[in-house]
């Protein structure tokens, strides 16, 4: 479990917009049980993100919650899309968020994309995957 990393973007109705799981190379597919656990933890942290984002001027909220060995970091975009990441290392997460934010802005400018709708773009997915590898797993 350690070394893996879960990233979720959450829309205005607390609905997941984009989800991605990063597994370190050579690790097998995580068990089903853990997959829902990731969502559970991320979901449970949303209240804390809501609390924290008004206390800071920064978009990056650092660690908002902790569950076992997992740190929940959050990033709030200007449009109030919450980016939440579950991570055990905390390394490089800020850069990752910034890059994903950049990516998301470009994506959201697509007139065919509706804010809050789930992102189903393979290009976006691939790019996030790349960013994850670059900042988090390396």
């Amino acid at each position, binding site marked *: 479990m350690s070394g893996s990393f879960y990233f979720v973007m959450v829309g205005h109705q*607390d*609905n*997941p917009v984009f989800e991605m799981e990063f597994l370190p190379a050579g690790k097998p597919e995580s068990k089903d049980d853990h997959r829902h656990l990731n*969502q559970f933890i991320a979901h*449970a942290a949303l209240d804390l993100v809501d609390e924290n984002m008004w206390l800071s001027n920064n978009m990056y909220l650092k660690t908002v919650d902790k569950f076992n060995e997992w740190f929940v970091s959050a990033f709030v975009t200007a449009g109030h899309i919450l980016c939440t990441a579950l991570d055990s290392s905390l390394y490089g997460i800020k850069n990752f968020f910034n890059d994903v934010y950049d990516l998301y802005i470009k994506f959201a400018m697509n007139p065919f994309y509706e804010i809050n*709708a789930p992102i189903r773009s393979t290009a976006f997915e691939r790019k996030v995957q790349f960013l994850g590898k670059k900042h988090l797993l390396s």
Partner: protein
Amino acid sequence: LTTHESSDVTDERLRPLLRSAGDQGLFTSLYTSLAQQLPREPMEWRRTYGRAPKMIHLEANFVQFKEELLPKEGNKALLTFPFLHIYWTDCCDTEAYKSTVKEDMTRWHNSLRAHSSADWVIIVVETNDTKKKNKTNILPRSSIVDKIRSDFCNKQNDRCVVLSDPLKDSSRSQESWNALLLKLRTLLLMSFTKNLGRFEDDMRTLREKRTQPGWSFCEYFMVQEELAFVFEMLQQFEDALVQYDELDALFTQYVLNFGAGDTANWLGSFCAPVRSWSGLLLRRPIDMEKRDGIQRGEASLLDLRSYLFSRQCTLLIFLLRPWEVTQRALELLHNCVQELRLLEVSVLEGALDCWVFLSCLEVLHRIEGCCDPAQLAANCSHTVGLWAYATDKLKSLGELCGLVSEKGPTSEDLNRTVDLLAGLGDERPETVSSLQSPYKKLKEALSSVEAFERHYLVSGGVIQQEEHEAGILVSKRNLKFIKIAGRKGDPERAEAFLQEAVKSYTSEGWSLPVTHTRKQIAECQKLLGRTEDYLQTSALLAGDGNLTTEERKHFCQEILTFAGSLTHKVTLSMAVFSQLTRLQFRPATASVHSGAVLEAELTLRCLMPVSVRIQQLAVSIHFDLERAGTNGRSKGASRATNPGTVEFSQADPSAGPASSVAAAGPPLELDEIQDRSPSDNSLNSTGVVCKNTHLVMRRHDTGSPPDTANCVSPPALTVKDGAQMLKVQDVTLEPGNNSITFTAPSGQPGTYTLRQLYATVGQVQFVLPHIYPSVQYEVYSQEPQLTVEPLSEPLLAGLPQTVKFTLLTGHYAVKKGDALQLSNTDTMPILPSASCPARITSPALVGESALSIQSSEKVTSISLPATPPYHTLEFHLEVLCIIPHGPDRPANERLTNGEVRHRPRSYSHPDTPMTAIDQRMSIDCPWSIYSTLLALTFYIPFKTKHSVLSAGNRKYIQVCLQNVSDVNFTLAEMQLTEKQHELLELQSLNTKTQQHSLFCLWEVRWKDDPPSCLQCVFSANFSPPKQDVSTFKPFHYQFQLERVSTLYSVRAEILPPAGEQHCRCGLLSGLEVCITRLTEATEGEAAEDSKTDADGPKSTKLMYEVADSSSNWAVCGRSSGMVSMPMAADAAHKVRIEVMPLFAGHLPFPKIKVLKYLPHTAAVAIQPDPDSCVENDSLSLLDKALDDQGDTASIRSRGSVHSVGSGDQQPQRGVAMPRLEPFDAGQVFNHSHTQQVLVLPATDDHIMEVNAT
């Protein structure tokens, strides 16, 4: 005389202290009314430092004076501070005053002065009793008061007050009471202002010293609290609260500074390890125990905070602001935990959790104690935070003490529990008796696993309930309850929590947690034995794509196992099992006649991971008779493009983001509008309108989950027992799309609505309660229908024509032997034909059989072959419509069935030049008692005209036969016959040429008398070209000619002017008209004119008129005149008229009209028969020559006349006016009809010069 009364500061309310000295007995008698009346009136309190003045009610405690109780210098206690000293005396005796009272008073005064207390008052009580008693040696009563005043109040006369007869109820006593109370209040306030001001100054000074070493917060705390007490005493709770808030802020600042490295020495005592975590104590107004601890500097941080908060809480409740308490409490609890961390105080693990838990419950208890339940429920949004925090802490305690681990607490856990319980100390005396004290709750919760869970879940339940009531979305953190609840004993409660959780996850669209939670729900439901719910959840899980196939199969198997083993029927929602995606009708119109086959193909998307065998799949039908009978076919056509197929839109089957999309509302229906100016069509404005604003702008109800398919609990199902059902037995549904074909019942005509869909698996029934959009099919019943139509248009009369009989049998089955009875008519006989095949179609050809047609005199009977219902029977018959001869009309006949025979009337049709004849047929059908009346329209292919031509006395009859149809005909044997006059010879002058229009001419020759009336029949044979001679059909045309013989001949001559050989333009010429009678009076004429001249030679009057419409001639003088003509042969009459030619050349003669002149005595006008106008409509050539105006003929034929002179048309009937009547064609012959005369130009007077060179 002075006695001491102990002061009680722990009294319910704090009161300013008044010390009374003097006559104790007197005071005791007055005390009650004084204490009561003092606070009755408010006083305005003006305060220092610009604070707003306040109205306050003063209450006081009265204490007996003791010298040793006077405050020492530097004593800061305000609570025990005597604000006013009162000396009571009722002395009225000068001696007594001098001997004892004065001395005592002086001592009292001195001691006061020694303590620099300037707030005092002396009250002299006077009663009538004392006056009476000392009547003898009494001094004026004022003298004692004056004495006292002079002795003590050297400049302050107001310090001595007289109270008269205090115990009597008189106006005087009342007055003096009021004066006394006012004085007391004023003095008391003055004292307050002065002393408080001094105290506040001291306090500030002390606060400014806080940076100096040796300053102690605890000391300062006591001082400022003293001030707070005083404010509380004066019921200025707001001000009191401010004091505590200031202390709170000051302390917090110190702790924060400590965290930043700036330590204060006095903080040391607060850094001591926490040994007691007994929680807040809010049940006493002042917790003296803790206060003493603070005073001694021994209080821990928690003690200080607890005490401070308990004071704030008390004041807030006095201020009726209980919700602020809860808010502050939550802040305080979080704050304290942080402060302990900042101060690096060592705390036993879990101790803080205990403290927080107890405190939360204590606060909640306090709030509950001061609010009624309704108020509490309305404000649960304020308390839910505390509940949540308490539950959180209880949970962490449970984790700490091993109460939530599956193995139960270890010995280490138990030790820790004991330590924690020790720190709670003994239960406070206030709560010992109550069963639900926080202390007991915590102790019980920590004592055993079961008790812990009970308490934990209770508080969890409270939160959920409160959140619901407060309308807050269930906070995500609280979903964690479910875990612990699910793991341990209480599945019922756990299930409720889990359902809540699922609702929350579903509405937000987190699919994986939904799946996981549902799995837990399934476990709980299985444990609880809620079969129905369990099966529902299992079905949901079996169709959940997030699970592995094995898990899905497991849940599916569960359903199947239960379905086999259950004893009662269980009804579940269809949505969890499969989805209806499509329904298709065959035939696609979804409308059949009764008894026909209608198939409905259902497409079901089965969500199960394995194939499921279904015992029965049924669709209940609602039958509606109302719309039966309407023609189903037209209904079907008016439906959507593909009426037979209904697509059922489905939400995303995975509990996914569909909900968020749905929350976004329906798509906008936008439309472009353009506003163009009407004059030049230029664009004024353009815009976009939303057509469905009412839908888009509608408030979305966030409360209900949009996707009912994900609703876990099955909807309330009522299995409606429809009499009719679509049923299929034993179907195996494969995962994915399945197609099932039903045969729909179509017995009765009407509308069938598909209502519910059931799938039965053993005892489990999956029901789709409503099929939406609604699906209907129609069954209609049709009456038999017989139509007769021409096989080819148009039907021509006179020739055999084929007509097509089409019989739609409808619901009627044609049996063998059924026959159509056609009433024969003379004008349209049915031609027998050898073989008459009938085709039965449906709509494909079913069979073919020969018809037998039997004709009797009146009826033609066509026996039909047996035909099943809703088939079409077609056969052809040949009929002939006989062309009517002409104007003659036979009398009405009756048909065989008694109906009045409708004589076919010919009429002209606007579309075709042919004359149309409607032939009615009356058919008796076996299915109806009524005859079917049908009309066929035939067209006469010929048009015939006749006319009489005259040449002097010779007469010619011309018949014009015109073929107006599209068919070519061969005509033969044209002949004209006359019925009446045998001697009459009709000589044909015809050639044999064949043309499109044929003119035939006969000369009428007679031997002796010219006939006055001729009954002629024109007959010809015709046939389509290139046909045998035998196919020739006769064509007859009958007509009557009347008054054909010529009566008068008109001869005109133009005489050139005298001396001229020719007429000359512009010169008058003479027109000589000679009218000659050619015959004797005929019978008709004689009858006509007999009335006018009964005797003498018969004569008739004629009117002549010369008119030239072409402006060739100018008639000079009279153009018309009347002549009397004897009715004898060769009688002649000559008229000369002056005319002038206007042009040169060969000019036609001016027209000369001769008209019958009927004198006014001839009352009855001859009305021409209206029917004769058909024949007479055509103008003969001679007529034309006579009448220059084209429409004169029609005017004449309708019997209208020109009046002489004026030419106006006037109503003629019954008016005694002379009338003019034209002659019939051929009665007047004009010899000079087309004659011309040469007219020379006028004499040329001009000289033409011709030069020759």
